[in-house]
């Protein structure tokens, strides 16, 4: 397989990496950059656990090749906190009991972050729809939807 030199911005840091052309963004993040906060649940685009933001849009890192994010900006769960202060979604998820095993949580939070960036005050139905691509097997979603609602209303601050 051919390797290609890439420049990728991940969480405000520029990485220059040599990646095989068939390397997925998920593999690049987890195995080459050691950023294991992004999870894999299926590697077939079914579960949403590997959701990251590329130029602000939620994408499934298992279905995106590393070469496709050349010169683009990637935000992972590790990049959501600011100087050690957690994002309001991270605090709201913790307080609401929206994470049980926690495995879907990073992807879930990034999908929610993309939603709130686009639509700061989404309706409950809109939240439900925006998170429909992220599977959770523990919580039954209700506490997740509640946490996103709390974060949107700003009362988590």
């Amino acid at each position, binding site marked *: 397989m051919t390797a290609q030199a890439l420049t990728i911005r991940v969480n405000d840091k520029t990485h220059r990496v040599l990646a095989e052309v068939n390397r997925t963004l998920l593999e690049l993040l987890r195995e080459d950059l050691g950023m294991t*906060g992004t999870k894999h649940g299926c590697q077939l685009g079914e*579960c949403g656990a590997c959701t990251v933001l590329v130029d602000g849009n939620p994408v499934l890192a298992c279905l995106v090749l590393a070469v496709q994010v050349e010169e683009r900006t990637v935000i992972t769960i590790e990049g959501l906190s600011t100087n050690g202060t957690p994002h309001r979604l991270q*605090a709201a998820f913790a307080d609401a009991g929206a994470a049980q095993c926690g495995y879907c949580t990073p992807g879930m939070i990034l999908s929610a972050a993309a939603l709130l960036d686009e639509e700061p005050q989404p309706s409950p139905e809109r939240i439900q729809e925006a998170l429909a691509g992220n599977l959770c097997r523990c*919580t*039954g979603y209700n506490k997740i939807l509640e946490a996103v609602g709390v974060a949107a209303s700003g009362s988590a601050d």
Partner: protein
Amino acid sequence: MGGPHTVVGKPLPRVDAMSQTTGQLVYADDLARPGMLIGRQLRSTQAHALIVSIDSSRAQALPGVRAVITGSDLPITYGILPVSQDETALAVGRVRHVGEPVAAVAADDAETADRALELIQVVYEPLDEVVTIEEALDHTRPLIHGDSSGQNVHRAAALEFGDVEEGMAVANHVREDVFWFAGNTHAALETHCALAEFDADHKLTLWSSTQVPHYLHRTLEKVLEIPATRIRVIATPSGGGFGGKTDPFSHEVVAAKLSMLTGHPVKITLSREEVFYAHRGRHPVLMWIKTGFQSDGEITAMHFKSFLDGGAYSSYGIASLYYTGALQTTTYRIPNYRFEGVRVFTNKPPCGPKRGHGTPQPRFAVECQLDKAAEELGLSPITIRKRNLVEPFTTTVNHLRITTCALDECITKVAEASDFSTKHGQLPVGQGIGLAVGAYMSGAGLPIYWNDMPQSEVEVKVDRGGGVTVFSMAADVGQGSTTVLATVVAEVLGLKPADLTMVTADTDLTPVDLGSYSSRVTFMAGNAALEAATKVRSRIVDAVAVKFEVATDDLVVADGQIAVRGDQSSGVTWPEAVRLAVAAAGPLIESGSYRAPDLAGPYKGAGVGISPAYSYSACIAQVACDAATGMVEVEQVWIAHDIGKAINPLLVEGQIEGSVYMGLGEALFEEQAFRGGLHRGPSLLDYKIPTSLEMTPVEVFLVESIDPEGPFGAKEVGQGPLLPVIPAIANAVYDALGLRIDEVPITPDKVIAATRAKAKGRPGRFGPTAAPEFLFPTLTRVEAPQEFAAP
């Protein structure tokens, strides 16, 4: 323990909540070790075949491949239950299901490992497949475990308590029904993963997403033939278990063996497809149930038969079999009860324990039949249930000791909240409401292997800075066991849960807890933690009492202080008190333990179903159904749960909502479906689990019965609330459409078939009509316990 409490009963976040939400929590597959190799397993393409030959020479020769192993490298059998050790890590001579591991490789990287698998040539000689329960009972089929033909029976049981014939004879009304519960699977978001490191000093460390580090430790000792003292198992934070990580697994043994052979750490992470083959999920069960009633709804006798499709190996199967017959008596007083059950082997991935282990299937049958009987007797679903409720502090006819039971109050809560009596039978066509109840164990009364030792041990160590470290082998699989144990210890010591350091699930560092299964951790490890913390508290209080020259009873331990009652300013801080205690009597390290009382009745099989306490749940579901499309939508669920005492109500609610969610998926669409021996869709695209769009609003009620033996009165919550959800939905579908779908999942095709049958004048029903012919063993007749007084 009566309260008021400072942290027990408070809806505090998990102690690891911020690690979870920031992505810092390290799961098994997040680990990497220097020089680590990647392991992969070659899996059978055949459902049932002899292995004629395996040629791995080309794989061995591939650059980057460090080892290739087959069944002959790991010939020792194992299995979770000591009585049924019928698995090998890699198939020996024969494969019994598609996806069974046949060979394994360790290579420098995943790509090389995958290429090596393609180079391994396995020659199979196919045998006839045995796929269904009927085929398994067909005498002409080949034996899956054996060399001849015959019935593929794993185990059969036949027990009678009281006198069922007599009970049926006095009944005014007798019903027979047949139900089918399709198999389904856990589908935890994290796929299984194990990382093994056999170091230069010949010590093996295995990190695994297991729920049962202690049992895994014992399996590795047996299969690898190295002493337990040289094996360390660390259960990593688990990305979901639900019973799916409760067996010792092939990939765990194989990773260890490959590390021993190569001298490198080896990691094996299962693909999503492989998880469907590793399985151990809900058994498909066919059930026949005959119950006698008086005209007022009182149950006079029950005869229950179950036929379990076990898949290719034993797993927990003997326990699963008995569980399908054990807990019927825990909700309703059944004076005469017969259970006959059989578990068969088929050429499919092995079934095992999934949330509720063997009890959701019979609960579905019992609760649906009770609704049918109520209608025939002109009783409401509430009346027939309340007529038969077990009383607290009684013993069932099959010798199960019941302590607290607030099922009556649970039913009342959900009935009132949902306005059930007004709605039932009165909603417009297409809308319906249904009720069901359930009960579950707060931990299995006996360990999996027979021994006299505690089932849970906890140590609490306090350092001179006041730092408290709690050591427990209990594995947090998302249920929040670590937070529960921290809360128990913090309450006793007057601290905050988040202040404690929790060291868990490590066989080198932590004292034994049997594992996160059978909803045992809060009750058992919680009691052990309570004892250890109470001993620490005594030593602290003794030392401070000497210093202040007061009686120990005059001291209050709270808010990080030890003070004389009524004079908060008199106190010493927690770290000062710790130093006083260490100066007085040496290192401040204490331990506690728990072993369930001896509860087993006087019969073989009595070990299954006993528990120090049972949780109770009542659930009402309201549905909207479309007879034309067959679609069922659950619009609202009300559920009340007798938790004993909610140590952390936020976590308890989470378990209940999660149980409703999982029950909803099982009721409406989840199924491990096969075409012959081939899984129809081993992926999350084909195996549908509910998304946020299918989930329903849930109103949760916690009922606190304060169990006398539970820590702070607590009982279980992780599994019980799932049980009533499925029959509540089925009963609601009947209320909506007048159709009995006696089969789960209740998929649109079944609803449509029942609609069409009804339109043609046949019964508006979908489901099995008869149980297979099977000669059960001679009944073992067991006298009812002396405490089981006649009504």
